């Protein structure tokens, strides 16, 4: 069930100047969360931020009553979220949105870039329970922009591309050799910048592989009430916040 809940800032893990993991804790229990779900976070004490901000749920700990987010500071809200005092109150509406399909796949590829890697921890965790073999393919501009690889490597093989070649293969994710080598994935999950996801979807399509993308449209409500966050699909405009954020790329008018 969706709920509105006050948490407190428990911990920041700084990844670099712009990227951080925010862990919030609560006195009461944390709702069950599925991979791909997100939260609408109220940014406290920020005069020029009016609406909540949608952020994927990175992880939850039902014993410690914590929920965490991987955030890339790109603007007013995400910057402020990175500078709160420990113990300050953060109100979130969650869990929102649909989730990735988990369907006894044998061998899957998770392709992410930027803050798009956030849902992959919960997803990998679920997939592991299903004994699915997981390969991560993470794209970044440069070595300093590659995060969470340690966490990912607990679940599977981690491949990297960087645009400047400073880490992993040089180039864009879609240029990675995994796509040219003997390629036997039965499902691709992708989350990151639109152009990246579109390119991945194209490859998946060519190879007749199911591909799911998690979109990051701008949202006002996050709960299907305003119809602001739509994406065009073959069945008409769909709300990314409730009918997504995860879509089978075949549905999307890309």
């Amino acid at each position, binding site marked *: 069930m969706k*709920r*509105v809940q006050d948490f407190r800032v428990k911990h920041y893990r700084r990844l670099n100047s712009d990227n951080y993991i925010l862990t919030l804790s609560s006195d009461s229990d944390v709702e069950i969360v599925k991979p791909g779900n997100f939260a609408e976070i109220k940014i406290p004490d920020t005069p020029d*931020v*009016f609406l*909540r901000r949608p952020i994927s749920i990175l992880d939850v700990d039902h014993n410690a009553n914590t929920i965490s987010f991987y955030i890339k500071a790109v603007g007013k809200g995400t910057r402020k979220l990175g500078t709160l005092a420990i113990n300050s109150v953060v109100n979130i509406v969650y869990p929102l949105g649909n989730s990735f399909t988990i369907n006894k796949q044998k061998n899957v590829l998770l392709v992410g870039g930027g803050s798009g890697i956030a849902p992959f921890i919960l997803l990998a965790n679920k997939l592991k329970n299903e004994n699915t073999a997981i390969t991560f393919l993470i794209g970044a501009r440069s070595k300093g922009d590659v995060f969470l690889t340690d966490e990912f490597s607990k679940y599977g093989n981690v491949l990297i591309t960087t645009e400047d070649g400073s880490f992993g293969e040089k180039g864009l994710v879609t240029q990675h050799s995994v796509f040219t080598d003997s390629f036997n994935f039965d499902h691709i999950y992708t989350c990151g910048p639109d152009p990246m996801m579109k390119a991945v979807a194209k490859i998946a399509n060519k190879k007749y592989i199911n591909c799911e993308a998690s979109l990051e*449209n701008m*949202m*006002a409500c996050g709960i299907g009430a*305003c*119809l602001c966050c739509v994406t065009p699909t073959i069945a008409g405009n769909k709300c990314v916040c409730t009918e997504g954020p995860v879509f089978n790329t075949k549905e999307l008018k890309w």
Partner: protein
Amino acid sequence: MVNLEVNIAGIILKNPVTTASGTFGFGEEFADFIDISKLGAIFVKGITLHNREGNDYPRMAETASGMLNAVGLQNKGIDYFINTIYPSIKNLGTEIIPNINGSVVEEYIEVAEKLNDVDGINALELNISCPNVKEGGMAFGVNCPAAIAVTSAVREVFHKPIIVKLSPNVTDITEIAKVVEGAGADAVSLVNTFLGMAIDANTKKPILSTVTGGLSGPAIKPIALRMVWQVYNAVKIPVVGIGGIMNATDAIEFMLAGATAIQVGTANFIDPQVSVKIIEGIEDYCQKNGISNASDLVGGLIL
């Protein structure tokens, strides 16, 4: 005990707090967060005769204490509403008031006719003020002859109360209010959104796919409050106040200015529980101020 009931054109609402069209979906979206049956009414998302896909993405831009939207009346049409949506929401325990729209008068008529015999629908909101559609929409609400034409046409076919939703994008809103009163409106609701615009200085492009969109939220409250007060003093029919209401104090201000009921819009996005908090806040205020009927607040402004 405070009696929160208010009477809009013969319909008794259990309290003055309703939710604004387009900001509360069809009500069910909020069922996880609040007890929907506590609401005075739900004005559901704008409905047209046929399915509409609405405008292209992006449809939203954040502004100072507000937001612009350019949804463009995305909906599956009146038949889908009546046959598929309404049956699942009719028992939410509150008044369901459809918000109807059209590009031409005939469309409004057809939609209203279809709603006439829907059991449990006791009123409709006639939207003559949507700024986000190419044809019709706001055009009906900013000019007297058009406002009269659509109101009287719907009046002829619809047998229950009609609440006409007015546009704030006019020189004199009392003029429009008076002519729709004359044309048979049982109540007016105001305001709809203000036509606004947002630009991304980096890309040099408009943020909305439609260039302009409708401004809502606390930014517009002072203007909306003024309009409600003006209209309250100009017409005899009840006024439903809308525009930037974020809390009980705002709601009470609108009632003092002359609103018999109020609609909570954009605030639902910031706090999905706000509508119920506003009901509680009004009750509190009445209790503290020795007001036994919330309806005594209406027009209670002391000049």
